[in-house]
């Protein structure tokens, strides 16, 4: 940053400061902790100075926004041109209830949709499957067939608004339902924009909603890359996710490293299929967590952009600058919310959202204060959305690009996280890559150890969580919680029965048979899945065909 002479002078001055001013103060007033640590357990220095970023080369390491290596952002004007997409993750009960919630959110200024599916849907089961008992609509909306998807987006302009869908194992099937539902309204697939999460590696690593073993899962994902690049140029065919890795207990460095390692694995798989890297890489998107530690999170986002640009350009030889971009969605940390004094969660979420914005996110979900207790109520979700709007329009932080660049602390931590990520890449490489490392339980073990360490720090009061281990209150809960419509499940089951009765079952059987044949071969499965969906094959029926051919994944034993 500075010339040699200046650095020597600063170093001298710092020593002098430590010896005199600092020393006298510490003698009188010792610090609160012997060692300060971040949320991730990384040590925090008392003071950061130019000495901590002595090797930083502005043009090489930071550059200008919209230019390689994109540390300062992927767009030259960032939020001065267009604000991030305010995209609230929502879904519960039946398609009717969730459709009403989407309309409510859009009416209040939301700019993109994000679908939460219930557990049976995430696992590729229909609502009436025995394993689905008690799970209907609990953590998201149930979508068992095209009929549900039609209702879910009824009256919503899917050709104008983008939709993100958190679906992984059965992503191809749900995506096909979205495409088919639009098609029935006369909207061609080329006009559809949005995202399917479609990230199975982090399911094996952290969230555990898997269907098939790694090999066929990777094939399905590459099928969607290929199909999307041909027919849905505006669709992000994957959202490579660190969010769930972090929620499972990972540190910021682990979230960063494991997510980017997953990303590289997808890129390699698609290249191995014979796809040109620039044909699909611009449609890869990412999804990160924004946790409590403000500066560490901002540093993480900046490091992520720099690493990805470097990897795509140097390792995978992508030529299109769009392939170098790391575009990402952010969600504030669900695991940081407390059931105690839930109103405090509004403040936590605000700080986390601010970190995401200062980190240059492309879209953002802010959690509602009641999410440690139940699904968000209308009031809670509205406050969460308003939080983003206040940051965007009142705080002023969106008015200049990457305003924290040059902070000694932020730049030093950006470097540190980058370095830690590369160290993890080496470890993963040594284990044979991401999939062998999953099978050996490497990620799962790393994450479980971090989660336990974090919890112990709280128990031992090395970490204060307001309202949990300090400033507790014993007061009954006063915020109103969401109640599901008890009729929802009945409605859904009836609709499912009607679909099975009224569709052309002979046609469907032919299409399922065609899918089975294709699954046994090597063809792209998307057209077959789309055909089965159009004939009102249910999610469970289609996934059963694939389960039959591909088998089911079994988790390694890591506790």
């Amino acid at each position: 940053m500075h010339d040699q002479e200046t650095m020597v002078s600063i170093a001298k001055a710092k020593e002098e400061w430590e010896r005199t001013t600092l020393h006298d103060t510490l003698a009188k007033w010792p610090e609160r902790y012997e060692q300060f640590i971040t949320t991730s357990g990384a040590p925090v220095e008392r003071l950061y100075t130019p000495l901590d970023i002595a090797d930083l080369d502005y043009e090489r390491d930071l550059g200008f926004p919209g230019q390689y290596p994109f540390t300062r952002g992927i767009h030259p004007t960032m939020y001065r041109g267009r604000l991030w997409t305010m995209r609230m993750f929502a879904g519960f009960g039946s398609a009717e209830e969730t459709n009403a919630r989407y309309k409510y959110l859009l009416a209040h200024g939301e700019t993109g949709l994000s679908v939460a599916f219930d557990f049976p849907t995430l696992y590729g089961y229909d609502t009436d499957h025995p394993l689905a008992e008690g799970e209907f609509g609990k953590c998201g909306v149930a979508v068992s067939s095209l009929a549900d998807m039609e209702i879910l987006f009824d009256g919503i302009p899917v050709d104008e608004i983008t939709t993100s869908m958190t679906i992984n194992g059965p992503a191809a099937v749900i995506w096909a339902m979205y495409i088919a539902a639009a098609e029935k309204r006369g909207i061609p697939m080329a006009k559809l924009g949005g995202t399917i999460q479609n990230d199975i590696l982090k399911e094996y690593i952290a969230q555990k909603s898997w269907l098939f073993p790694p090999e066929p899962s990777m094939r399905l994902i590459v099928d969607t890359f290929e199909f999307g690049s041909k027919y849905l140029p505006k669709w992000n065919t994957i959202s490579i996710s660190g969010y769930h890795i972090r929620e499972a207990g990972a540190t910021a460095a682990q979230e960063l490293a494991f997510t980017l390692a997953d990303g590289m694995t997808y890129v390699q798989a698609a290249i191995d299929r014979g796809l040109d890297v620039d044909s699909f890489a611009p449609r890869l998107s990412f999804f990160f967590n924004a946790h409590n530690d403000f500066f560490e999170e901002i540093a993480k986002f900046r490091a992520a952009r720099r690493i990805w640009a470097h990897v795509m350009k140097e390792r995978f030889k992508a030529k299109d600058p769009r392939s170098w971009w790391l575009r990402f969605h952010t969600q504030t940390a669900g695991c940081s919310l407390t059931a105690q004094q839930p109103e405090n969660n509004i403040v936590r979420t605000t700080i986390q959202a601010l970190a995401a914005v200062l980190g240059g996110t492309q879209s953002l979900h802010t959690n509602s204060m009641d999410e440690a207790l139940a699904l968000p109520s209308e009031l809670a979700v509205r406050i969460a959305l308003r939080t983003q709007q206040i940051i965007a329009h009142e705080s002023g932080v969106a008015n200049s690009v990457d305003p924290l660049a040059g902070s000694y602390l932020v730049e030093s931590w950006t470097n540190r996280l980058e370095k830690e990520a590369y160290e993890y890449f080496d470890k993963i490489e040594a284990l044979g890559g991401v999939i062998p490392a999953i099978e050996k339980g490497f990620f799962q073990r790393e994450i479980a150890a971090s989660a336990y360490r974090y919890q112990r720090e709280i128990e031992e009061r090395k970490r204060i969580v307001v309202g949990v281990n300090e400033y507790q209150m014993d007061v009954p809960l006063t915020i109103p919680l969401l109640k599901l419509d008890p009729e929802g499940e009945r409605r859904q089951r009836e609709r499912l029965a009607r679909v099975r009765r009224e569709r052309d079952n002979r046609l469907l059987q032919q299409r399922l048979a065609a899918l089975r044949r294709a699954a046994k071969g090597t063809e792209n499965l998307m057209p077959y899945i789309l055909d089965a969906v159009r004939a009102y094959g249910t999610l469970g029926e289609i996934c059963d065909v694939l389960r039959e051919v591909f088998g089911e994944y079994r988790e390694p034993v890591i506790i």
Partner: protein
Amino acid sequence: MDISRMDDLVAQALAGDRRAIARLISTVEQGGAEARQVLSRIYPHTGRAHIVGITGAPGTGKSTLVAELAKAYRKQNLSVGIVAVDPTSPFSGGAILGDRIRMRDLATDPNIFIRSMATRGSLGGLARATADAAHVLDAAGYAVILVETVGAGQSEVDIARMAHTTLVIQMPASGDEIQAIKAGILEIADIIVVNKADLPGADQAVAALEAMLDLNSGHTEWHHGRLFQIEGVLAGGDQVKHSWRPPVLKTCALRGEGIEELVQAIAAHLQYQRESGLHQQREHDRAAEQLQRILRYTLLEQLLERIPKHALQETVEHIVAREQDPYSAAEALIAQARLLS
């Protein structure tokens, strides 16, 4: 537990009641007088099951293999008992027992009984506890009992003492390096399994193991009698000369591959033992070994009851201070205890 309650539990367990079986396993695992009473009651009903020991280093896929074997036996309509052992944490004395994760498919089969067990400190105690748990399952009528242990040196040998057939599980090593095979491990193996055979290096691993077996057979008889040989008169009659050469099999338990062949090999080993007389000999050795162990333990227990605790402590102090040697000290304590009786 009072006697009539114990009699009830034993009767229920013999009739196959799973709750009673579970309770009795806890009781025998605990050891002590109650355990001995239970074991003496069930002893007449044991000796029917085929006990198969499965051992190998962590990560070789033992639990998955056990699950697949159990499924194969269920297809033959045989009931299966499983004892799965995981290590106790040396720091806390607690344990996390995770073998059931791999045995998910077996969880609700009424003809399968799975019991997880922690090593709880002493490995010697572990061998007794697993053997006793297997006896309870045997008495309760389980046809095949699979005992899976942590691959930790002595426990492997201990398993071999108890089991009719011992499987040693290996996996292909990464690169050229063949997994280091502990001395003695081949001697306890009746069947060697190279699991995860879909990984690269499986054939090399098989070849290396075969070569080691060839090397061993040059100067060692394939007899297990040696392991059971104990000093003095308790050692059984003539050693049976035999020529079972452990087969080396490849499996991929995760995909269920090679399991049928393994089940056949286990059956062949049982048949071989019966025909060669080895089965008889092993039973004899086991009984002798068990009797000696019980004698040793009971005598020790009786002796310790008669020696006051402080006398023991004082003697220890004397030994530490080199005022007395441990050999004469022991003799003196025994003599003292005899006088007291």
